[in-house]
């Protein structure tokens, strides 16, 4: 091993890599733009849509109630509802969004109320349709208020205080510190993103430095120089690793900034913003990064080895695209509620790192599993790097035709 030669290869690959426009897109532009677009874009779109739905005066159809003019009159005076005349095809009209909801007032409703006979007011709406739900909610609120009013009147008619209905209150209160709350919401996502992006960031350079080199015919040129194949593969590996880490770091920065902006923009209600805000300090980010480091080594070595088998860019791409799914599945599994770190899972690559990152972001440090995961991933990474170096010595792979 000759550090001068490895450095020489690394600097040359870096120069070429930085001059490639595709690099700029896959390593710099996508991670930097993806998060702001995804988060700010989606959430403000959601806010706008919800705001629009809330501002709308929903059209509500009243079915029946001709014998209950008091209720009907009260409904008509509401300025946040528009009452439309009843028709036979009200169900179709809800489905086709001509009206938002329908309310069915039972026969002799008013008379039943006076006689304290229990009746049911039925509200029809289209589940999953947000504007229909809003309409139905308003109608429901109106009837609940109306009911409460009647109760109040009945109680006061009998000289009973209103508090009899509420002998005591029941309330829930959160004791978890804010980082735990955001950790639960975002911890899994953060680890997952770092893992996924350190993988996707490595794909393109891994192909370019192996199959790309074969395709362009420079493989024979470099193999005829005195550098040993081990130094050559280590130089290439260092570049792929750098690319992978650069993608991960850039996306972390972008993610942090997006969250911060989102929290401040006031696009969300303060409660949501508090949950979305990253209460994550620098030590946490560094810890996540440290855990992801051996995994990035593993990815770089594996991708480099696989891409080396390919004869061309296209072939390499078709080998490596399925790799994304192999990484996504364990990473997504760790996001499932109830999947917790056990000694056995701590040995499953990718899944273990994803799980431990979730814990770290949530402020929990299980030192035993952290050590176990770090070491096991290091062992996998070393094995993968060893295989990569060995593969580079194989003529049948280098000159596959």
């Amino acid at each position, binding site marked *: 091993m000759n550090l001068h*030669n490895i450095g*020489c*290869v690394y600097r*040359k690959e870096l*120069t*070429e890599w930085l*001059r*490639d426009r595709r690099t700029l897109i896959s390593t710099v532009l996508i991670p930097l733009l993806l998060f702001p677009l995804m988060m700010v874009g989606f959430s403000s779109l959601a806010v706008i849509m919800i705001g629009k739905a809330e501002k709308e005066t929903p059209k509500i159809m009243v079915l029946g109630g001709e014998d209950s003019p008091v209720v009907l009159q009260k409904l008509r005076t509401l300025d946040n509802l528009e009452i439309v005349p009843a028709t036979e095809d009200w169900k179709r009209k809800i489905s086709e969004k001509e009206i938002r909801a329908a309310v069915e007032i039972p026969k002799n409703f008013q008379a039943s109320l006076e006689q304290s006979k229990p009746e049911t007011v039925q509200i029809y709406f289209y589940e999953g349709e947000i504007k229909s739900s809003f309409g139905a909610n308003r109608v429901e609120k109106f009837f609940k208020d109306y009911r409460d009013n009647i109760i109040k009147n009945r109680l006061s008619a009998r000289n009973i205080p209103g508090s009899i209905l509420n002998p005591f209150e029941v309330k829930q209160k959160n004791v978890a510190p804010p980082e735990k709350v955001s950790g639960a919401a975002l911890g899994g996502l953060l680890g997952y993103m770092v893992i996924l992006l350190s993988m996707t960031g490595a794909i393109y350079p891994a192909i370019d430095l192996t199959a790309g080199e074969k395709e*362009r*015919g*420079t493989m*024979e*040129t470099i*193999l*005829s*120089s*005195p*550098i*040993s194949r081990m130094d050559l593969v280590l130089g290439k590996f260092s570049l792929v690793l750098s690319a992978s880490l650069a993608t991960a770091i850039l996306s972390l920065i972008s993610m942090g900034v997006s969250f911060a902006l989102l929290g401040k923009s006031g696009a969300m209600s303060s409660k949501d913003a508090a949950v979305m805000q990253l209460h994550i300090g620098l030590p946490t980010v560094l810890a996540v990064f440290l855990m992801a480091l051996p995994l990035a080594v593993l990815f770089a070595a594996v991708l480099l080895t696989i891409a080396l088998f390919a004869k061309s860019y296209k072939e390499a791409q078709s080998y490596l695209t399925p790799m994304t799914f192999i990484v996504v599945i364990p990473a997504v599994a760790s996001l499932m509620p109830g999947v917790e770190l056990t000694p056995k899972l701590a040995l499953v690559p990718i899944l273990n790192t994803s799980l431990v990152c979730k814990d770290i972001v949530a402020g929990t440090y299980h030192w035993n599993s952290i050590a176990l995961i770090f070491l096991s991933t290091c062992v996998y990474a070393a094995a993968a790097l060893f295989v990569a170096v060995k593969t580079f010595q194989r*003529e049948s792979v280098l*000159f596959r035709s």
Partner: protein
Amino acid sequence: MIDARGLSKRFRDKKRGEIRAVDDVSFTCQPGRIYGLLGANGAGKTTTLRMLATILEPTDGTALVCGHDIVERPEKVRSCVGFLSTATALYPRLTAQELVEYFGRLNGLDEATLKKRVDDIFNRLDMNGFRDRRCDKLSTGMKQKTSIARTLVHDPPVMIFDEPTLGLDVMTARTITAFIRECRDNGKTVIFSTHVMSEVEKLCDTIGIIHDGKLLTEGTLAELRAKYGEQDLEEVFVKVVSAYHSNSEA
């Protein structure tokens, strides 16, 4: 100098089984002389030269290049060899100068020597006009010059050319053949492979005819003409090859 001793290379192929790409080939190339390997496509020229350049490892036999064993000390061998073929492309996103410097550094040149060497070569090959142009923006001729500069940067005593003129136009091919002669005149050991008879006739001091992985005959042009009673090298070649086939059939 190059001293090949029983060089052999066998490949395993799924369909055809074991292939003897090069079979017990021995020859010697002297400094200041050009050795030409003449053979049809698939005769084993490229494999032989790749073994000499230690890009491939021989299955059997070995060779000494500048006194270094190609199996034992492949890195030493590569540092005293300049290897050029139509397959040895340039890195598209490096400039001509960066490319030559890269290979100089890989050959262990220190920065002062490297600068002097690069300036010297760029002047000699008249390459200063496209020094800072990226290799993917160079014309074929400029690319050839850059490739030549790459093989020369560490001033190797041995030059290996694998079908260097394949697919080049007349003018660019002439640059290469002129360069090969210049190498010989500077006292380098030169070996080159081709299937073009006229190149061999014009350039080579010693000719080896290779076919089916075996070196069938060798000698100077005059020796071969006398031995096979033909003036035309092409006729000599056909005679050698058909004699080999009738022998192997019998």
